[in-house]
């Protein structure tokens, strides 16, 4: 009887704890999702509602003019296509360079492996810092050209190590069989290793794409010409430095003069540009995330 009572009280305590845990979890999901949702509904509301900022649940007065105007902004398209260009170039180059290097390190017959391992390890612990890199880019004559982003972005020691550790899981007998058939290293890499390593290449490529898409720091140092600046630099000017007022850029003079209250505000343009620039990531991330989880697990094995 006593035992039964105790069990019941544990269960009851457990129920209360359950409810509290579920509520905290719901709040945490709200904290992560709501800011973006709020930006989305503001960007879709009509200007007279958006200006009050009091749109919390659903868009008030569905209104797409902000998007229409923004998509006619030339600089947005220039920086958008620059970002796509950088993402494609850097990702492909990085995959080629890293896969080749990883294959070298995975071979059993490699002479001087120790030296190569140290060669890769040292830069992971020591770096010259940003100033010497900046001066180097100046001296190479690639300052303010796309190369200043693409070349340093084409190599990542971390990705080489990740791919190498994956290559280590491919049975050695596959390589030996191909070598007995007279295949050279290039052929083994191309015909045996590459087809079996799609999962790791996908993980590494997605990390890289997200990194390039969202990165702005290197571009702010190396690229001053707006012709070559990526999307995030443009966003920084609009959202953070605020030296571009999109309502001044995208509305006609008459509109600006005539209607002070009901016209699209710079704030609403800001919310629109946030959605437009983040849209590819917002759509893709639920599919991306399982690769990222895999990457974190692979990485932790190496730590």
């Amino acid at each position, binding site marked *: 009887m006593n035992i039964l009572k105790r069990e019941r009280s544990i269960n009851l305590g457990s129920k209360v704890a359950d409810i509290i845990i*579920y509520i905290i979890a719901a709040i945490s999901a709200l904290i992560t999702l709501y800011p973006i949702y709020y930006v989305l509904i503001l960007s879709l509301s009509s200007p007279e509602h958006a200006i009050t900022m009091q749109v919390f649940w659903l868009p008030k007065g569905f209104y797409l003019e902000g998007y229409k105007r923004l998509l006619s902004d030339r600089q947005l398209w220039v920086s958008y296509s620059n970002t796509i260009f950088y993402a494609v170039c850097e990702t492909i180059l990085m995959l080629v360079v890293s896969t080749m290097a990883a294959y070298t390190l995975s071979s059993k017959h490699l002479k001087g492996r120790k030296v190569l391992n140290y060669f890769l390890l040292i830069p992971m612990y020591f770096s010259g810092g940003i100033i010497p890199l900046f001066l180097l880019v100046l001296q190479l004559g690639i300052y303010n050209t796309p190369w200043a982003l693409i070349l*340093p972005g084409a190599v990542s020691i971390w990705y080489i190590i990740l791919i190498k550790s994956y290559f280590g899981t491919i049975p050695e007998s596959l390589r030996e069989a191909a070598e007995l058939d007279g295949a050279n290293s290039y052929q083994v890499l191309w015909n045996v290793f590459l087809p079996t390593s799609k999962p790791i290449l996908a993980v590494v490529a997605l990390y890289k794409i997200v990194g390039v898409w969202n990165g702005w720091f290197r571009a702010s140092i190396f690229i001053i010409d707006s012709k070559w600046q990526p999307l995030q630099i443009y966003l920084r000017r609009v959202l953070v430095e605020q030296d571009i007022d999109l309502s001044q850029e995208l509305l006609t003079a008459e509109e600006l003069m005539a209607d002070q209250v009901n016209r699209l505000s710079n704030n609403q343009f800001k919310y629109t540009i946030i959605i437009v620039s983040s849209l590819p990531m917002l759509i893709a*991330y639920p599919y991306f995330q399982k690769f990222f989880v895999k990457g974190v697990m692979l990485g932790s094995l190496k730590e």
Partner: protein
Amino acid sequence: MDRTKKHAFSNKKDRKRNSYYLRENLELYSLFLPAAVLIILFCYIPMWGVVIAFQDYLAGNSLFALDGSVQWVGLKHFKRFISSIYFNRLIGNTLRLSALDLIFGFTTPIVFALLLNEINKQRYKKFVQTASYLPYFISTVVAAGMMLSFIEVNGVFNIILGVFGIPAKEYIAYPEYYPVIYTIVNVWKSFGFNSILYFSTISSIDPVLYESAKIDGATRWQQMWHITLPGIKFIIAVQLVLQIGRVLDTNTDLALLLYRSSTYSTSDVIGTYIYREGIQGGKYSYTTAVGLFMSLIGFILTFITNKISNKLTGYGMW
């Protein structure tokens, strides 16, 4: 088969094998070449470039000049930095923001993972988990931009506070609010992603341990305290060592977007100082010295915390 013949045969075979290995190694090194060139160029040469911390480097000089054109000045830049008013301010600001990051940024992913681990409805758990990854995919510029627009004078935060009669304020311009704003954006952006490591470690704990604990009548708390936490102790220790090693490396990316000249007294950190004085101000030798000095301290810190972690938990990086 007589001995000499056999010997000659194996010699020939050896030679054949040797020439095969030689060819294979040539191929292997040719595959490594592009990575080697890029790593030497963008990792090793900048590493060598820190010598300008001991020179008076002039823009346009070669990073490699070792002839009479170089003015060696010894530790001048280091001394200047340490005796400048910036030294205390930068270290203080950096430590304050890092301490906040340690208290909130480091613990939130652990608590979050432990919390979600208690949820039995898999779909709900999966949903909350997936939602928590979203900020990682939002760029720092957008995250900072949203924060700035929410807290500006006409922003939603001030509107809500206005309902309670609190007058509107330009929060980003006040040094006393900066650490809070910075920490919120920083934790928001990273906690979900940083929790992945703990999730995957928790899921690798042997379920038999929980089963037998339940049979022994262990409560939920006891299970978390005696099974789950010890199960992730190792990862927590390693992450802690890494984080303390980075204590002087605040999130420069984010700080550069959020700080203002009016908040320098709490917001200026080593990374932003180097960016401002070096990249924008052209004091290359001086800021390289600042950076070198800081990475030296960071390295020592990592070393010490690793020692302590080894002593206390038996786990560490080395």
